[in-house]
């Protein structure tokens, strides 16, 4: 889809030099404007009312301005350096960067950023007059920068991903990127003010767009392909460090733990949806089955089963019960597929929820006290480690939720391991074959039914584990936590994030859970926006934010150009090794 534009190619060809200069000026002025007062009073965002002392958020703006300035300058420097023969090695790298594309997207992003900031100031302080002159300077600079970038002729596509870099550079880059992400996330989470949170989110979005458009993203993804294990370990290390950035506050850790439970379940669901290609609209029932199992066998005074084995055993039983349910729910796949299968799973999910509410001693045996559920589930105590107590490590107190966070991280690691290993195995190949052409797969000797059941049972088992922990984190289990909307929410995390990838689903889960938690006003409209998001996403980018290459192919089967592009960039596991 082409958006009609007044910046035609002829106009760009004529004025691209002016464009670069305007972009450069816009970026520099924008960066400098961070030192000016943007707001009239200190009450908005993180106090932008000082002259000469940028607030933290203004520093983010400064960073954007500098990025734009650098992008615009490089276009001017490159021909000059090429002619003079200055720093040929650096120039080689520079030629692979999509400076122009980066500049263009940063131009839009800068305007979006200042727009959000000014809007937040106007809302929080009340009225346009509360914006100080510095704010208007920044806005003007952003507009100039945007016009400038629009005037630059379209740049070459970046080719950084073909850059050969020494291993340590790649590892360092991965470490730094993840560290940056950790700090940004910790910083964003510590914002009490909703406006600041949105501003940081906008900044993160602009930064991500810049990284993607300039080719840095391609480079990062190519090095993370090469250093897959490093990436995974670094990601877990970063997540492990997260509680230590909270200075003992458990408020964010509560959210983080919930996000982690949600994300782990979503990755489990991704085995069913992303790998095996089966739509499961009742997946929340498996989490629920795990939670109810753990609750009924817990030390709670309301637990209905007298047997109270150690938690490890409970967790395994929870997983097995979920897996059994998974086998039952999966058994119709022998005969049903597609939309009908989705409805069958939805119906199973509802049956689970309603049955649980009915097991109250009146309409059925009293197993879970019906809709009031099982409350007062005590904290875990594993090998003498009390999950309810505060433990101090290296001077930093880690509270109850931090403890559960670590436990969930461990379970997450298991789930990710299961997911990736299964994906790159004989079983994973079988799943792809089934997704591609079920009849042909069967005729080639692939055990279609068995593999589908395996996906259902395996995914359910993992969700059961997560559910067992969830029961103790929430301290109570009620049927209304496991409604259809939650299943839809999980599915949305998979769809938005990217079917068939771990990173995508984690990103989707984090965004879906975190944003409403941090934004009160979004919380009210949460479901509305979420519904809209699903519709828009299916139209614009059905494969999700970080998709599996093969999924892209499946959703865009008529885009020849894209297919050839993907074939060229096939990751190593697709290609013949010789």
């Amino acid at each position: 889809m082409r958006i009609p534009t007044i910046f035609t190619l002829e106009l760009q060809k004529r004025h691209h030099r002016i464009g670069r200069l305007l972009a450069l000026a816009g970026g520099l002025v924008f960066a400098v404007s961070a030192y000016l007062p943007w707001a009239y009073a200190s009450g908005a965002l993180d106090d932008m009312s000082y002259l000469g002392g940028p607030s933290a958020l203004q520093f983010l703006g400064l960073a954007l301005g500098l990025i734009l300035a650098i992008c615009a300058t490089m276009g001017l420097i490159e021909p000059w350096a090429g002619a003079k023969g200055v720093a040929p090695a650096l120039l080689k790298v520079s030629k692979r960067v999509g400076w122009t594309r980066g500049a263009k997207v940063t131009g839009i992003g800068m305007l979006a950023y200042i727009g959000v900031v000014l809007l937040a100031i106007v809302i929080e302080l009340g009225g346009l007059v509360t914006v100080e002159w510095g704010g208007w300077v920044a806005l003007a600079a952003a507009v100039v920068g945007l016009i400038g970038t629009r005037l630059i002729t379209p740049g070459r596509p970046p080719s950084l991903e073909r850059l050969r870099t020494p291993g340590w550079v790649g590892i360092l880059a991965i470490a730094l990127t993840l560290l940056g992400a950790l700090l940004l996330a910790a910083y964003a989470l510590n914002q009490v003010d909703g406006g600041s949170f949105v501003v940081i989110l906008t900044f993160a979005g602009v930064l991500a767009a810049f990284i993607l458009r300039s080719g840095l993203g391609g480079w990062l993804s190519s090095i993370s392909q090469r250093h897959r294990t490093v990436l995974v370990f670094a990601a877990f290390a970063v997540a492990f460090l997260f509680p230590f950035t909270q200075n003992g506050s458990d408020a964010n850790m509560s959210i983080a733990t919930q996000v982690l439970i949600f994300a782990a379940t979503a990755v489990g669901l991704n085995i069913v949806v992303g790998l095996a290609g089966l739509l499961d609209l009742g997946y929340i029932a498996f989490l629920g089955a795990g939670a109810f199992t753990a609750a009924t066998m817990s030390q709670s005074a309301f637990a209905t089963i007298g047997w109270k084995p150690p938690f490890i055993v409970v967790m395994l039983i929870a997983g097995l019960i979920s897996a059994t349910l998974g086998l039952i729910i999966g058994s119709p796949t022998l005969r049903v597929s597609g939309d009908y299968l989705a409805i069958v799973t939805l119906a199973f999910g509802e049956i689970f929820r309603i049955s649980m509410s009915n097991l109250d001693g009146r309409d059925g045996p009293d197993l879970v006290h019906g809709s009031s559920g099982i409350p007062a589930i005590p904290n875990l105590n594993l090998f003498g480690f009390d999950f309810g107590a505060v433990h101090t490590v290296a001077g930093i107190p880690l509270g109850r939720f931090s403890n559960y966070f670590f436990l969930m991280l461990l379970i997450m690691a298991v789930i990710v391991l299961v997911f990736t290993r299964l994906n790159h195995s004989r079983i994973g190949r079988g799943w792809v074959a089934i997704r591609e052409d079920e009849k042909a797969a069967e005729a080639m000797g692939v055990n279609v039914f068995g593999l589908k059941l395996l996906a259902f049972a395996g995914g359910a088992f993992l969700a059961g584990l997560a559910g067992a922990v969830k029961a103790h984190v929430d301290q109570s289990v009620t049927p209304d936590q496991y409604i259809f909307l939650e299943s839809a929410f999980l599915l949305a995390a998979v769809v938005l994030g990217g079917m068939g990838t771990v990173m995508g689903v984690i990103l989707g889960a984090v965004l879906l859970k975190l944003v409403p938690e941090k934004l009160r006003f979004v919380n009210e409209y949460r479901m509305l926006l979420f519904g809209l998001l699903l519709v828009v996403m299916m139209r614009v980018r059905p494969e999700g934010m970080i998709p599996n290459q093969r999924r892209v192919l499946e959703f865009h089967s008529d885009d020849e150009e894209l297919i050839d592009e993907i074939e060229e960039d096939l990751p190593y596991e697709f290609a013949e090794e010789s």
Partner: protein
Amino acid sequence: MTFFLDQLLNGISLGALYALIAVGYTVVYGIVQLINFAHGEVFMIGAFGALSTWIVLGTVTGGSTAWWNLPLMLVGGMVVAVLTAVLMERFAYRPLRNAPRLAPLITAIGISIFLQEFVRLFFGEIPGFPDAKAAIPFPQIDFFTGDPVNVGGVLVHRGNFFVIGALIVCWAFLWWFVNRTATGRAMQAVSQDPDTSRLMGIDVDRIIVVAFAVGAALAAVAGVAHGLRYGNIDFRMGFLAGLKAFTAAVLGGIGNINGAVVGGLTLGVVEAMATAFMPGQFGGPSWKDVWAFVLLILILVFRPQGLVGAKVVDRA
């Protein structure tokens, strides 16, 4: 015996409600092989549209509940429902016509949630409209509500007259529309072979819109019937009713209009009977939805072609 007849009639009227919604699933499926899972929400919107019409009328009439309100409410509900369905087709489904099956299904879930939330959040914001975050009482139109009528010893809830009558009228209208009008015949042609139909000069896009609109209009009638029958409506009512109507559509063989009507009636009677006569602890109203879902699963697994349909052979 009276109790049995009571339940039978109750089941038939419930079934008529399901049938009116089920037609929407079946007509759309027949034309584009798409299961519009957001159709339950169209039914809900229809009910709210009718309620809105009555409230607006009330500013002039002072809240009259005379019988002539009903046709106006029906029209109001239909307009809103048809508009919703047509917009949904145009902006959400049409761009996905050649996409993998997963895309329209997820879109439908998105639309469902969006429409529910839209009504929940914004219906009460309109001046003079009640808050929709909980169930809203539906206007008690004269004659169709009030004390049950005694027909030969059986007490008949008056709302039942409306829904059964509506089904008969709508069914007759559909038969006439599909078999006797040019548009109806074009619909038949498109359902047989869309590509050839296009070559024959039929505007397939328009036919698809018509299919959505017809389904929505009937769903709006069902919405009004639901309001009269239960006395209140709420933003969540489309989910369960939609699923059960979908069951009815599959039961009758999806794509088959008469099948949807038969399927709806069957499902309604079975549900009423099961609720009333299922013995022991697992019977009664708190388990009835479980049994409805069990029935849905059994049908999808063992008779996906419906009660009367023939098995379709797929070639290698």
